């Protein structure tokens, strides 16, 4: 017996809809559950105090500050280099085997496991360049990890700027660089910013690359220079949820909530930039 084809369609679409909804449900549950469980731990003291009593009391201030430093450091590392490389690929690179090799390299960088970035950072920055475990080494490691995202979103943003802008620039006697600096880059800026924020969002939440390059288990003071170690939120959550026996569950959920809010705020920011400029765009 053949199944009537519109019945088959109903069944198939039903299954597909269920699949799509089942992808969303855990997201809502996880965020909701962490919010409900963690909100009780949040207080001014929790955000701004040093951890005390073997991290079972007090706050998460040094971890929060550490993560802010590392995120900024990753930005300082990845933005100039990534935007530069993106500009090269979109505006200068000829279509030949060498350019394709660069693209292959970028795709491969994007796929390298985060813990291997950690090993690389340990080998190059901590040991070979003698930075030791430090904010400098951690920022550079996270920055290089973010690089492929910045490069590819920059290139994408640049290639969506209409070709006519380049033609007009050339017809007015502008050089390629003048066109890039004064016309193309400003037009592509919102797209680049969106990509950069999304890349840094990932860097802010990463644990494996900072394990051996910067993260301190317990260091209840603020870093004085880029050569200091620091605590960081993701590593702190790992430590208190697996390494410290008798850790109050409330503090664990509170820490997870702060990390989640930190990261999701960046995600929201990226979405808002994209929305705002898409509406304002003239072309």
């Amino acid at each position: 017996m053949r199944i009537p084809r519109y019945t088959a369609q109903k069944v198939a679409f039903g299954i597909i809809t269920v699949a799509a909804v089942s992808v969303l449900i855990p997201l809502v549950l996880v965020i909701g559950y962490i919010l409900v469980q963690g909100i009780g731990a949040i207080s001014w003291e929790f955000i701004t105090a040093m951890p005390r009593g073997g991290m079972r009391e007090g706050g998460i201030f040094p971890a929060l500050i550490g993560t802010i430093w590392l995120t900024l450091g990753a930005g300082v590392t990845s933005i100039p280099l990534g935007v530069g490389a993106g500009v090269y690929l979109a505006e200068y690179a000829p279509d030949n085997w060498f350019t394709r090799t660069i693209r292959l390299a970028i795709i491969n960088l994007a796929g390298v496991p985060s813990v291997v970035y950690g090993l690389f950072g340990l080998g190059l920055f901590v040991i070979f360049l003698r930075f030791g475990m430090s904010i400098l080494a951690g920022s550079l490691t996270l920055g290089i990890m973010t690089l492929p995202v910045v490069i590819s979103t920059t290139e994408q943003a640049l290639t969506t700027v209409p070709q006519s802008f380049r033609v007009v620039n050339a017809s007015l006697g502008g050089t390629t660089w003048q066109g890039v600096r004064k016309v193309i880059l400003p037009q592509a800026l919102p797209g680049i910013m969106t990509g950069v924020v999304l890349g840094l969002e990932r860097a802010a939440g990463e644990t494996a690359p900072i394990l051996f390059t910067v993260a301190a288990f317990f260091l209840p003071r603020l870093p004085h220079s880029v050569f200091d170690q620091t605590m960081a939120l993701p590593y702190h959550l790992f430590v208190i949820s697996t390494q410290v026996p008798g850790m109050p569950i409330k503090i664990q959920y509170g820490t997870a909530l702060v990390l989640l809010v930190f990261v999701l705020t960046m995600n929201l920011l990226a979405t808002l930039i994209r929305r705002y400029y898409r509406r304002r765009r003239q072309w």
Partner: protein
Amino acid sequence: MPIPEVPKDVDWREFFVEQLIRLMGVSAIALVLVMFLFLVREGVPSLVEVPLSNLLGQRWYPTFEIYGLMPLILGSLLVTVGAIAISLPLGVATAIFIGEIAPSWVREILKPSVEVIAGIPSVVIGFIGIQLVSPLVRQFSGAPTGLTALTGVLLLAYMALPTIISIAEDALDAVPDSYRHAAFALSATEWQTVWRVVLPAARPGIVTAVMLGVGRAIGETMTVMMVAGNAARMPLGLDAFLRPVRTMTATIAAEMGEVARGSTHYHVLFVVGLALFIITFLINLAAALTIFRQQRGGGGRFLA
């Protein structure tokens, strides 16, 4: 899209800037090479210090100088295959829903949500795994612990979803509308069109999605380390999913902090990292080549 430039008086500042930008573009290649170099530099001494038969053995007891990598490699393989087996059908179905079925307002909710899933830190997923998923796994399986390969598989499957969904969606999107119109004209239903025309046409892109999903799953570290139990035993037999398992990534993350720099154990951990680097390199190379074959020059959009 470079436009041929009319020769002008060369401004030395402009020349300098352009050379700098070119250098930045080339830096991507340099980084891959330097990364490979440092993994080799720190890892290769172990190949001299440890006989190959030891490295290929079935037991991992670094304290007794037994460095068999097989349980770690098979552990990574087990959780990766398990995760992809779940996230491939789920991800492709979701991509079909977003691309072919959902009304536009649903799409506007779903697409950013998938991006949010990608943004949740792996340590938060691991934390939820410990708190919520592993008790469930223990209850349903009756295993003595909830920290099992299965727990890792479930969470990894969820983490690989955004990669698979977004690339599969791009692949569906790239199928020309004329294919769909032709199918409709032959009085195919929407589902027949999706199943018999659009999906087969998008197959190379979906293969790419699977490959990058595998890369994502095999490289995930914190989640697996937190929930999979970390027992370095050969994951053989049908109940392997219900026992603790240890992956290559988790081994590096868990042990690198405690080894002495320059020791044999330290070098072996770098070899594990080197193996991961080479595996993901090959996966991404294969994925990139399929992309390049489809559309020359534009692999970039598959990254973001």
